[in-house]
């Protein structure tokens, strides 16, 4: 059974700081997706990473897929209050989700 472990579960930092959150598995994934979910709304797709070692940038967000395609990271530079939300990674043909990292950026 494929599992995705996300860490940390919770993260609260000041505006302007940098942060990294992680999505790890013991299984190989053909691709991983990152979603952001805001309170009262559904998750919104941010990015899909496909190739081992791939790096994708979305403004201040940088996503990396591990060389072995078993893990991924999301780095946010100069976090803003608008980055607050639940960050979820997902993947697999059975579409499994990690339990998420709840991020809170303090103004």
């Amino acid at each position, binding site marked *: 059974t494929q599992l995705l472990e996300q860490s940390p579960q919770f993260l609260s930092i000041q505006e302007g700081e940098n942060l990294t959150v992680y999505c790890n598995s013991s299984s190989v994934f*053909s*691709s991983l*997706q990152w*979603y952001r*979910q805001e309170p*009262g*709304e*559904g*998750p*919104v*797709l941010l990015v*899909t990473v*496909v190739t081992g070692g791939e790096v994708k940038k979305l403004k201040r967000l940088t996503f990396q897929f591990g060389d072995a395609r078993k893990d991924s990271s999301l780095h946010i530079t100069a976090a803003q209050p608008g980055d607050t939300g*639940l960050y*979820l990674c*997902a993947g697999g*043909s*059975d*579409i*499994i*989700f990690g*339990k*998420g990292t*709840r991020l809170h950026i303090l103004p």
Partner: protein
Amino acid sequence: DTAVSQTPKYLVTQMGNDKSIKCEQNLGHDTMYWYKQDSKKFLKIMFSYNNKELIINETVPNRFSPKSPDKAHLNLHINSLELGDSAVYFCASSHRQSFHNEQFFGPGTRLTVL
């Protein structure tokens, strides 16, 4: 212009009742899904469905059944509601041809069973 819509947004009902949640997508996708998100925000797939194939998560009780009148709609029927069914239910869609199963989610339906 909403891509994936669900109704109702909130549903409060008594234990033992039967209820339905409706979902519609206007993205032209051929696969639709239902997810359950519990109080700890854990998102778990319940069903995936296209016009040829229904895949059921084996952990879902048979009180839950998806009904698809056409490719753009996938409704969720729940019989004999139980307290543990209280959660937020999300509908989603994707293009089956997308190898990566990228999901487009609706806004969710918060179900409270009293």
